[in-house]
C-alpha cells in the first residue's frame, strides 16, 4: 500500500434537528480522503472540520465498525448501506468512489422508523417483533445435553443463513412498502428449521407477523429490494418459508 492521491467529494446530507423538525439537505465538502478511509472515517473527517469551525457535526449511528452490530444505517446515493454487495456502511470503503463525486446521504426512511436526529432513526419496532415470539421459551438450566438434539448439517447451515441477520433494518429501508418481511422471515425461518423451534412454530409466526403489522410495517409485493439491500445476504426464500409457516399455522 503506497501513498495514494487524495479525493475531494461533495456530500449532500440530510440534517434534521429532532423528530419534529422538517429537516433539509445541506452540502459539505470532504477533503483529503484516501481510498483506504472507510465511509464512516470519511464522515469523521468532515465532522472534525465542522466542529473546528463551530458547527454541529453530522449525527449518525455506528458502533462496532466491523459490520456486525447492525447499528450503522445510512442510505447512500439511494441505496441502503451504499449498495455494495454484502457490505454495511462501516465496511464500505472510499475506493468505491472517485475524486469529484457527489454523494447523497440520508437516513433509513420508513413509516415504522421515525427519524430521531440527522441520520439516526428509531428502530425499536424491530425489537417489538422479536419480543412477540422470536425465541424458544426454554428456561435457564434444565435443558438436555446439546448432542441429544441432532440436526442434519444442511439444516443447520440453512438455519445459520437465516440467523445471519444483524437487525440493521436495511431491508425495510430498501423496500418500497417499508416491509419488515425479510427481517421477520429470517427469524421465523431460523427457528422453524430447527427442532428446538418447532413446538412453538405456529404461535410464533402468527404473533410475529401480527406485531409486524401493528408496528406499521408494510407487506411484501415481491420486489426483492430487501435481499439486494441486506448486508448479510439473507435470501428472500425465507419470506416464502415464513408464508408457508403462516399458512400451516392457520390449520394448527
Amino acid at each position: 500500500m503506497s501513498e495514494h492521491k487524495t479525493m475531494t467529494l461533495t456530500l449532500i446530507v440530510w440534517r434534521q434537528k429532532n423528530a419534529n423538525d422538517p429537516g433539509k439537505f445541506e452540502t459539505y465538502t470532504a477533503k483529503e480522503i484516501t481510498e483506504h478511509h472507510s465511509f464512516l472515517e470519511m464522515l469523521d473527517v468532515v465532522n472534525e472540520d465542522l466542529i473546528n469551525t463551530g458547527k454541529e457535526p453530522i449525527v449518525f449511528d455506528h458502533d462496532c465498525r466491523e459490520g456486525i452490530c447492525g447499528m450503522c444505517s445510512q442510505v447512500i446515493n439511494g441505496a441502503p448501506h451504499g449498495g455494495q454487495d454484502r457490505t454495511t456502511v462501516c465496511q464500505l470503503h472510499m475506493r468505491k468512489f472517485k475524486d469529484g463525486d457527489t454523494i447523497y446521504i440520508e437516513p433509513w426512511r420508513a413509516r415504522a422508523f421515525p427519524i430521531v436526529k440527522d441520520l439516526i432513526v428509531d428502530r425499536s419496532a424491530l425489537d417489538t417483533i422479536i419480543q412477540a415470539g422470536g425465541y424458544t421459551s426454554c428456561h435457564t438450566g434444565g435443558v438436555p445435553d446439546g448432542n441429544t438434539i441432532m440436526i442434519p448439517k444442511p439444516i443447520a447451515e440453512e438455519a445459520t443463513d437465516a440467523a445471519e441477520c444483524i437487525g440493521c433494518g436495511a431491508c425495510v429501508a430498501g423496500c418500497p412498502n417499508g416491509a419488515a418481511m425479510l427481517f421477520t422471515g429470517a427469524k421465523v425461518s431460523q427457528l422453524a428449521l430447527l427442532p428446538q423451534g418447532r413446538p412453538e412454530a405456529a404461535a410464533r409466526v402468527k404473533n410475529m407477523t401480527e406485531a409486524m403489522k401493528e408496528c406499521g410495517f408494510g407487506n411484501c409485493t415481491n420486489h426483492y429490494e430487501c435481499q439486494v439491500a441486506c448486508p448479510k445476504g439473507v435470501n428472500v426464500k425465507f419470506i416464502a418459508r415464513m408464508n408457508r409457516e403462516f399458512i400451516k399455522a392457520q390449520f394448527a
Partner: protein
Amino acid sequence: MILDGKCPTGPIEKSWDKHRFDLKLVNPANKRKYNIIVVGTGLAGGAAAASLGELGYNVQAFCYQDSPRRAHSIAAQGGINAAKNYPSDGDSILRLMYDTIKGGDFRAREADVWRLSQVSNNIIDQCVAQGVPFGRDYAGYLDNRSFGGAQVSRTFYSRGETGQQLLLGAYSALSRQIKLGTVKMYNRREMLDLVVVDGVARGITCRNLITGTLESYAADAVCLCTGGYVNVFYLSTNAKGCSVTATWKAAKKGAFFANPCYTQIHPTCIPQAGEYQSKLTLMSESLRNDGRIWVPKKKEDVGKRPEQIPEEDRDYYLERKYPSFGNLAPRDISSRSAKEQCDEGRGVGPGGRGVYLDYADSIKRLSEKVICERYGNLFEMYERITDDNAYKTPMRIYPAPHYAMGGLWVDYNLMSNVPGLFVLGEANFSVHGANRLGASALMQGLSDGYFVIPYTIGGYLATVKPVGTNTDHVEFKKSIEDVNSTINKLLNINGKKTVTEFHRDLGKIMWNNVGMARSKESLTEAIKQIPVLRDEFWKNLKVTGTGAELNQQLENAGRVADFLEFGELMARDSLHREESCGGHFRVEHQLPDGEAMRNDADFSYVGAWEFKGVGKEPELHKEPLKFETIHLAVRSYK
C-alpha cells in the same frame, strides 16, 4: 488491607456444588419484592437480565445502543470453549481449568476457574435449546475446532460469527422476559454514576442519550456488565462506544479496580492503514488453525511481494520457537513474537508493522472450497478492508488491543467490595488472570450471566430487606447534581481541540508506554504525560451543541475524561508489578530467551486499587492467590 475472595474450601471438584447449597435462597413469592439493575446487555448482561427476570425478580436493564442486541459481544468471531470432550481427545473439566489457569500465567483464582470450567458444558446445552445454530458435523452432532493455548478441540462455533449467534440467543431470552414484563428495558441510556447509600449500592444515574435528561434508578442490587476498557488505547478492536465509564464511576464510589495492567493485545488484526483510522479490525484466532504465520528471513526481502520470497527465505517463527503449539501459541506470546519480528526490521507492509498469515499450504491440502467454508466471511471482510484476496496472497496481520483481563474486584459471589454491587463478564477481573485464552470470553460472559449470578445474587438478597425503587434519597439528588455539573463543565470549556484529538493523544501515550512491552522508564513517562494531557483536556476541549439533546461529542467527551483518569491507574499498576506475566510484559523481567519471567514469591496476588482522588496516589489492596490444584510452574508452550 488483605482482601478475602470468600472462596469455598475443600476439594475443588465439590467447591461450586457445595457453595450453591450453602447459599441462602429467596423464596419464589419474595423474589418479586426485589429489584435488580443490570447495566449492559452483552453476553453477561443479557444472560443475567433474562435469567434473573425469569426467576421472578424485577429487573431494569440498560444499554447505550438502540437495542440490546448490539452489544460488542456480537463481534466475537471464533467460538466458545466447553469441556464436553465430544471428540474424546482427552478433555475434562480439570483440563479446561488447567489450560485456563496456565494460559492466564497463574494469576487467576482457582475456585472461580473451576466453576467456569464446570458450567461451560451447561452453556452449550442452554444455547442449543435457544436455537443457536452451532456448527454441526455430517452426522448432525455438534462440531469442534481448536484454539490457542489448548491441545484439545473444545471450541464450539457458528461460522466466524459465534458471538453474534450467542448474543442473539441471550437477546431472544431477554426479549421473552421483556414481553412477559419481568424485565424493563431502557435503550440509549448511559450509566454516568453509581449511587451508594450508607455504603451499599442502591442505584444508578443515567443520561438519556436521545433527550439528554438525567435519570435516577434505584434497586436492591446493581449488576455492572459493561465490558472492558481497552479503548483507552484509542485504536482497538472494541466498538466505538465501549468505555471504562461505568466501572470507573463505580471505582470512584469505592469499588476496587483489580489488575488494570492486564490487557490483551490480540495477534491477528488488520494492520493500521493511516492516521485517520478510527478502529482496528480483528481477524478470528480460529484463522490460526489453518494459516501459517511468517516473515521474511532477510530484512532486504520485506519490500518484495510475498510470492516472490521462496520457501527457504521465510521464517515461520511461531513454528520454529514453539514446536508443540506452533501457530496456536497463546495470544500474548504470539503478539509479542510478531512485535519482535517487526522490531528486528522484518515486518511487512506500511511502516513495517505486519506479518504474513498464509493459507497457501492449507488450500493445497484441503482445497479452496474447504477453506472458504471455514473462514469465508473472514476472507470477505479482509478483502473489503484491504482490497486484497487472501486466497491468492497472504493476509497481513498485526497485534491490536482487544480485551481487558483486569476489571473491578469481585469475590467468589461476583460481588465487589461495595455491598450490593455485582460485576459480571469482562468488567470484572476474576477468571482470566494475566492473559485470556481464545474462546474463553464468551464462556465467561455466559457463565456469569446464566449460571453464577442467579445463585449468588440470591445469597446476598436473602440477607437484606427489599427497599423498593424510590429515588428520593439525597444521594440520588446529589449524584444527579454531580453528573450535571461535569456535563456543564465539558460543554463550557470552549477550547480548540476536539474529543477525538485528545483520545488519539491518550492512545499514543498508552500504546507507546503501556503497550506490548513496558519498562520502568516508559511507565514513569506515561504517569508524567497523562496528567498533563488531562489538564489540557479540561482547559482546551471543544464540544459543540448542548446537554439537552442527542450529542455524540458530549458522550465521547465524558468517556475520554474517564479514560484520562483510568489510564494513569493502568500505568501505575504496570509500574508496581515488577514481573512479567501474560499480557503484562516488563522488559526488565524476561528469561534469557525473551520469555516472560514471573515473580511468584512477590507478586502472586491480585492487585486491587482504591481510588483516592484524581491525581492522588491510589491505595493498593492485595488478595493472595493460592494454587492447590494446579501447581505453579513456568508457563511453556515449546
